[in-house]
């Protein structure tokens, strides 16, 4: 129906248009810096250069930047030049700056970055404490007449401070690989869940994720319901093992710093509005002074629940359905 309206509008409005080119001022290229500092992993940064909207070509990574990270307690880490590795998901090259330390919960960090030909940038963030996941339940229920797998994640919010959360769901299994007629080894494999919150008013996070603040449940134990139509398409499971492989649901609740929360929520909004000419423009938040991007803190808690295979739908790597949940 909305398509029809678009067509009608197009007919009326665009049908009479004349098109002319206009000039727009070129904008100075700036550094974009990303670093989401989590105590569970080594601090990593990525730096690229922005381009004016009318400039041609792909965005370029900055390989020779100098980064200095200062903790609130005066510990200084200096990083010079990026490493090179391939993005495990996309296969594209990644130029990362690895800090060689794991951030400490509750600690504040200031990140200074500079590169020849660009204005130096600075960003500050604080690493939040991990959240306590108290319970994870799974099952199936009817939603709008359709049988849906659900996951309830319960966690305790700290009422003393303002908290922001990212909730994500993924699936994992142990893929049996027959080495010889006797030996079978099990290799872990993680698949993605097409998950979304059961409360539609919470929609707006990214793919398989939910970004929320504790505004509605400050200081309380809170349960978030996620629905997921799940697949394990990245895991090559031989059909003879389909009834015997264990399937795990991995529930992650990441406590985000305010910077991270603002960045992710605005970024997902911009993505969601893409392609709709009537959508209000979305400005993506940045805490990088004189630049773009976000240096944010986060602390991830995860809980893994073993479920039966009939909770999920399993595809093999060719997207060929080998097992469908009820």
């Amino acid at each position: 129906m909305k398509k029809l309206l678009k067509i009608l509008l197009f007919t009326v409005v665009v049908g009479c248009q004349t098109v002319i080119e206009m000039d727009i001022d070129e904008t100075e290229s700036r550094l974009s810096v990303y670093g989401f500092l989590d105590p569970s992993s080594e601090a990593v940064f990525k730096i690229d250069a922005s381009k004016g909207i009318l400039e041609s070509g792909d965005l370029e990574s900055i390989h020779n930047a100098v980064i200095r990270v200062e903790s609130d307690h005066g510990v200084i880490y200096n990083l010079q030049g990026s490493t090179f590795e391939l993005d495990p998901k996309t296969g594209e090259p990644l130029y990362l700056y690895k800090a060689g330390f794991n951030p400490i919960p509750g600690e504040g960090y200031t990140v200074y970055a500079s590169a020849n030909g660009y204005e130096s940038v600075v960003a500050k963030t604080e690493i939040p404490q991990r959240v306590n996941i108290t319970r994870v339940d799974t099952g199936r229920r009817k939603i709008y007449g359709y049988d849906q797998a659900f996951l309830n994640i319960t966690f305790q919010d700290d009422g003393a401070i303002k908290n922001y959360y990212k909730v994500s769901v993924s699936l994992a299994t142990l893929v049996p690989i027959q080495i010889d007629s006797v030996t079978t080894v099990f290799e872990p494999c993680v698949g993605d869940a097409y998950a979304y919150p059961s409360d539609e008013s919470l929609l707006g996070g990214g793919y398989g994720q939910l970004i929320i603040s504790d505004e509605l449940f400050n200081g309380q134990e809170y349960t978030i319901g996620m629905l997921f139509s799940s697949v394990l398409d990245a895991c090559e499971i031989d059909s003879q093992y389909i009834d015997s492989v264990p399937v795990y649901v991995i529930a992650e609740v990441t406590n985000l710093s305010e910077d991270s929360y603002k960045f992710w929520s605005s970024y997902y909004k911009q993505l969601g509005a893409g392609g709709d000419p009537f959508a209000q423009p979305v400005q993506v938040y940045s805490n990088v002074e004189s630049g773009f991007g976000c240096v944010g803190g986060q602390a991830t808690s995860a809980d893994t629940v073993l479920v039966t295979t009939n909770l999920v739908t399993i595809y093999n790597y060719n997207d060929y359905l080998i097992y469908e949940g009820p």
Partner: protein
Amino acid sequence: MLTTLLPHLLIAQNFTVSGFVEDVKSGEKLIGANIYDPVTYKGTSSNAYGFYSLTLPKGDYELRASFVGYGESSMKVSLNANITMDFKMSGVSELQEVEIVASQSKKIQEESQMSVIEIPIQTIEKIPTFLGERDVLKTLQLLPGVQSGSEGTSGLYVRGGGPDQNLMLLDGVPVYNASHLFGFFSVFNTDAINSVELIKGGFPAHYGGRLSSVVDIRMKEGNMNDFHGSGAVGIVASKLTLEGPIVKDKASFIISGRRTYIDLLARPLIKYGFKTEGVDGVAGYYFSDLNGKVNWKISSKDRIYLSSYWGDDNFYFKLQETYPYDPSHDIETKTKAGLRWGNLTTALRYNRIITSKLFANFTATYSQYRFVIGQSDETKSKPKIPGYDQDFEFEYISGINDWSGRVDFDYLPSPNHAVKFGVGDIYHTFVPGVNVFSSSFGGAAGVDTTFGADPIFAHEFFTYAEDDVKIGARLKVNFGLHYSGFVTGKSYYQSLQPRVSSRFLINENLSIKASYAQMQQYIHLLTNATIGLPTDLWVPSTSKVKPEDSRQVALGIAQTVRNKYEISVEGYYKTMDNLLEYKEGASYFSSGGNWEDQIEIGRGWSYGAEFFVQKKVGKTAGWIGYTLSWTTRQFENLNFGKPFPYRYDRRHDLSIVLTQEISKKVDFAATWVYGTGNAVTLPISRYAAPDANAFSYYSSDVYNYGDRNSYRMAAYHRLDFGFNFHKEKKRYTRTWSVGAYNAYSRKNPFYLYFQDKTVFYGNGTSENSKELIQVSLFPIVPYVTYSFKF
């Protein structure tokens, strides 16, 4: 107020002359005519129903009446008792005393009210317009303090306010969507209109419910004496108006209809187009409207009026196709889709002259705005294949319905006081979006359901009192209070709104004016497009969404120069709270769920200066209006909480309007407008998306929009001109109107967007980039219209 009035009530030797002021030929009431004693300069003016009341000391007088476009009328009266006397006035075309009329007209420097502009309907009829369709709202856009929206649209943005902050009254009934064809035409048919008044500030207490302006449009009543008609055939639409007495001098009627016909003309072509594709189909668009009014003079003291407006915009699309299913069966599919919206307003009014000093008006009104978008599909087998046939139907309906009643009194105890008071209630029913869905498959009963937002019911009530009082020879003050309340569900809001407007005469021709007005608005329009989409949604204040309110102060001078030119200069400062905007990323096409979750609440302020010089009568007439203004919005969750320019923040806005009577048979009119470009939000750069730590699969660029509305479109300017050629025929007068909109074909910006482009290099490589495209709607658009009057 009573202590002020009491001395006047106690003066025994004063008597009152009262009655109506009307056109001598048609009996049409003249609103705002001046009635005065030329010796003492004590006087009054006729109200919205043409009624006047003037109380003077006992004695003999020669009272005069004057009205723009009419010759002066004088009548002798011996005032030794309260008497009734009607003034019947003749148009200047009969008297040919144009300059005299100018000297006797109501003078702006003498009025206590400021920020008010009346446009004679004759002027509106002369001004060249888009495709020759006379348009009240587009004429109002040519006034200072009033900004148009995008190219061609009829939305009004008054002193930094939004399009929903204008109270559009047609015979006292609010009209919620005042535009046809996405805003390119307004719903008001000039043939049926008697008067138009725009109030931008210093609002009298009898108005309420909107923050930024009142557009008070009064329909004609119909000729009491003779049967007359008029009509026009234009490029876009044709219209016909008929009026005349039902019972001579007792009751009259007027009916006026208009319809576009491009759909009818294009229908054969469209059908042929579908035929070449092997299907039967038709598609088109039209709008039509109908104004009607009857009035009945029950006695010299009682009158009753019934007026109604109905308007409809309709997009339609029908497709029928038959194809073979197997050697013995055919399948027939039918698809229908449509988009329809329109207003219906009806007002029943009863006027009663209770005493010569007290006039009462009782009004009951109904106003409906409805938007429906629907689609149906039907698949049938012939002959019938069991279990094959299916149908599907979907409709989305939104709108607002109002029932209202009000009582208004005009009390005129002396020439120094004009008191108004009244009370009223509006019962709103909001339909913020209902989906009706039905389907059946294979002959089995399927789904037939209605879902969506529930209707919301609300009462909006008000009471007011005001007095237009003269204090000494130089000072005149209009002060009053407007109290209003709003109840919906468990939410209750109320507001006491003081209003004051005053003038101080420096000399006979020059006055200083000042005003303060506080306004409250309980209903809001959710709109996220730059054009007047019918999908715009009227919603009420709720526990989450508070009423909008504003405070406005204005200061100015008003002067009449050489009895010909009215000059006014006004400065204003207005603050607005609880304004609504869609959240970032929200869109009609993507938004779902509760509308309250889609909005942000913030504030705004606007200030500026307006310069206006107008010549209303004479062979050469017109005006120059210039506005210098700043309009800002601030929302906690938009633009990171920083203030940003409103989309229609327009630093400079200039309009020049000229009408010239070349001869009795030919007149010419031209308008030129200039406005600073609209403020828009555009991406100015792009940077990498956050894929470094595999938080997301998205690897598209992030767009940096800079500050909200920080980019300015190119300035808007346009020249329109037109000639009217009149000729008296034996039984009628005909007029050919020819002219052009956007005469020098300026490519004015309508909207901007980025388009991807690929640059190919000589070595076989290529690079992708973007270019900014400006879309302009209308180059020069000539028009020709044939109209007639009999």
